[in-house]
């Protein structure tokens, strides 16, 4: 496939054939440059995807409806679609249309060689619908802002949908075309304006993306540079320590402590400069956040009294042998699930003061859930 593209350079979009392995195998086998069929020079149509490529439909059961040759006879068979949505193989197209416009062998509509496009979808009605919609969208490009109210905008959309439907299903084609022409004549200026608008929008988007990309690259480069510097510095320190230990006669522990302190100072300075770089991104984020006022979330709207006035969690923590393991867990393995010892303390303290003043019930005449027994002595609710 690559060889073909190189030889020709004729496609507006790169064409990728669906159906993979077998197709590419046949191509790699013929390593000699292929004689280029003249017909292929014209096929720039088809449905492009986001990257500008056209994915072509391809199947092992392909058969040209005109000459009946199939993939078994001709592994390089390539079917193209006419403007009347009939399929034909390349050799048939060459044979029939090289000498100028000729009628379609299936429906007799006069066709030109230029009007054949590669097939993208298996179902040709889909192919047609996509083409029609694309064509309509080019002209019917009014936006919500071009209408005084929602009602008229919806009417417009309805009309567009009507026209599209008619074209797809070949209903009143002449009349519909007339409608389109009338619309075009009426709104020529607006259409042009909207096209420009869309182009400008697309351009903006692209520019923005590129700027972001540039910035990312810059930041990555800077990060790399910093890391490199840091590494070098560390190496240097190590070397210095060793040198000093070799040469000076001070106590080793003090020397190491001193150089450590130096290193800590330097690293904190680095961290400060790093935050300055990051603040740009943070600024953007805060600007986005400003628009939405942050209302504190209150999960429950209820009327509970949770003894908050009866106790106070000591912010300095407690001398607590229960939670010692959790608090000393430096890697945070035990806090993995979001466990916070403060919350456990809070719960215990709350439990300690809950209902402390509650008077116990006295006597028999307080309402209580008496067990109800049936004749067999079982609790009624406890069915056996």
């Amino acid at each position: 496939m690559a060889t073909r593209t190189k030889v020709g350079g004729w496609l507006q979009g790169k064409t990728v054939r669906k159906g993979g392995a077998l197709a590419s195998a046949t191509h790699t086998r013929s390593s000699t440059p292929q004689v280029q069929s003249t017909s292929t020079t014209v096929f720039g149509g088809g449905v492009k995807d986001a990257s500008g490529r056209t994915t072509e439909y391809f199947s092992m059961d392909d058969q040209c409806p005109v000459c009946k040759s199939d993939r078994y006879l001709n592994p390089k068979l390539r079917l193209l679609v006419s403007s009347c949505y009939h399929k034909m193989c390349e050799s048939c197209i060459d044979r029939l249309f090289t000498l100028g416009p000729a009628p379609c062998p299936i429906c007799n509509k006069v066709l030109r060689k230029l009007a054949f496009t590669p097939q993208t979808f298996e179902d040709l009605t889909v192919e047609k619908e996509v083409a029609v919609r694309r064509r309509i969208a080019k002209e019917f490009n009014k936006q919500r802002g071009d209408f005084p109210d929602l009602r008229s905008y919806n009417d417009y959309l309805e009309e567009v949908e009507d026209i599209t439907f008619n074209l797809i299903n070949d209903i009143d084609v002449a009349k519909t075309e007339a409608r389109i022409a009338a619309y075009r004549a009426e709104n020529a200026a607006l259409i042009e304006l909207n096209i420009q608008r869309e182009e400008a929008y697309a351009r903006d988007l692209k520019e923005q993306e590129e700027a972001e990309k540039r910035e990312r690259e810059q930041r990555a480069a800077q990060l790399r540079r910093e890391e490199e510097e840091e590494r070098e510095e560390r190496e240097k320190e190590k070397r210095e320590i060793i040198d000093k230990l070799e040469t000076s006669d001070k106590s080793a522990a003090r020397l190491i402590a001193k150089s450590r302190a130096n290193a800590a100072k330097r690293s904190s300075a680095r961290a400060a400069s790093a935050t300055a770089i990051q603040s740009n991104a943070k600024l953007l984020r805060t600007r986005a956040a400003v628009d939405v006022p942050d209302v504190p979330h209150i999960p429950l709207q209820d009327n509970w009294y949770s003894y908050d006035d009866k106790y106070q969690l000591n912010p300095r923590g407690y001398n607590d042998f229960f939670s010692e393991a959790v608090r000393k867990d430096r890697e945070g393995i035990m806090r993995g699930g979001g466990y916070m010892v403060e919350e456990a303390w809070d719960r215990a303290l709350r439990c300690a003061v809950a209902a402390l003043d509650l008077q116990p019930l006295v006597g028999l005449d307080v309402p209580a859930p008496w067990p109800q027994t049936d004749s067999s002595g079982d609790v009624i609710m406890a069915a056996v």
Partner: protein
Amino acid sequence: MPSVPTNDLPASQPKISLYEGSTQFKNWRYSADQLKHIRRTLNEAAVAAIRKTFETDEPGSSTGVAFLNADEELLLVKLYITKITQLCGHFRFPEEVEATAITYLKRFYLKNTVMDWHPKNVMLTALFLATKTTNNPISLEMYTTHIPKTAPNDVLDLEFLVAQSLGFEFAVWHAYRALWGIWLDVQNFPGVTEKLETSLYDAALNHVRASRLTDVELIYSPSQIALSAFSLVFPDVASQWMALKSPHEVSTLSTIVDDIKSIITTHGHPPSVESVREVDRRLRLCKNPEKVVGSKAYLARKMDAERSAAEKRNKKAVEVQKAMEDGDPFGNELAEKRGLAGLVDYDDDDDD
């Protein structure tokens, strides 16, 4: 507390404290007299019912049987509470599981009698249920293989019954947690932190554990029990803390604490095995025959249940048949149905 967003609803509505919103407060709080009364009436009703079953089985057979009284039932339950503690030590379950299981067992026998359901099985089920409700699950196989002479079915058969008797109210407020809270909070007093030694905490916790052998958790709130246990170890710090927490009602609170202390010290011991063995021997004779698999009364009851189930099924079949004949298998118009709503049996047969 750091400022927790409190939702100030209309001030006219008094706030309900969290403990008073719990099912423990609403449905499982009794007075001592009430407990006595419940146990007595339950025991009497059970004895009457079992005596009747004996008589229908074989007239005159109930005269020689010495049924258990309410105190003896309680003694047996108490013994199996100590068994829960042993099992929890064996499985290394956390304190929460043990305390919850014990609470379940006690609550179960406020709705049922020992003569119907032997506490040995109920205890196993209550403990297994507690592991699940406190989020310390263990597989059933693991559980039963570590307990001698126990099959998975012994645990599962009673599970629904136990859950139902508990009214599906599985959340329990425990005194041991309150004790921890007190232990933390008294550290705010100057000079106390140095006195708090781990061994003393264990001593206080042992008093809480002893309180589980008594009825205090059905009468008093967990914080009061914890305070009493703490007070048994640190009387002066406890009274200081009491004065701080409820300055207006120190006297009433200290009376409550003294009551609990006396209950814990007098009743908080495991029962002597000799006395329980005697009770258990008699229980074997006066067990409800309807609950003994294979006995005549059991079969009779089972047949009874099956008959009523079959009746119900037949009735339903007839109704369905009628509905089919009427034309619409899903019943008639809603308007007609509404008039009949009381008569139609929506119940499924699954519960049998």
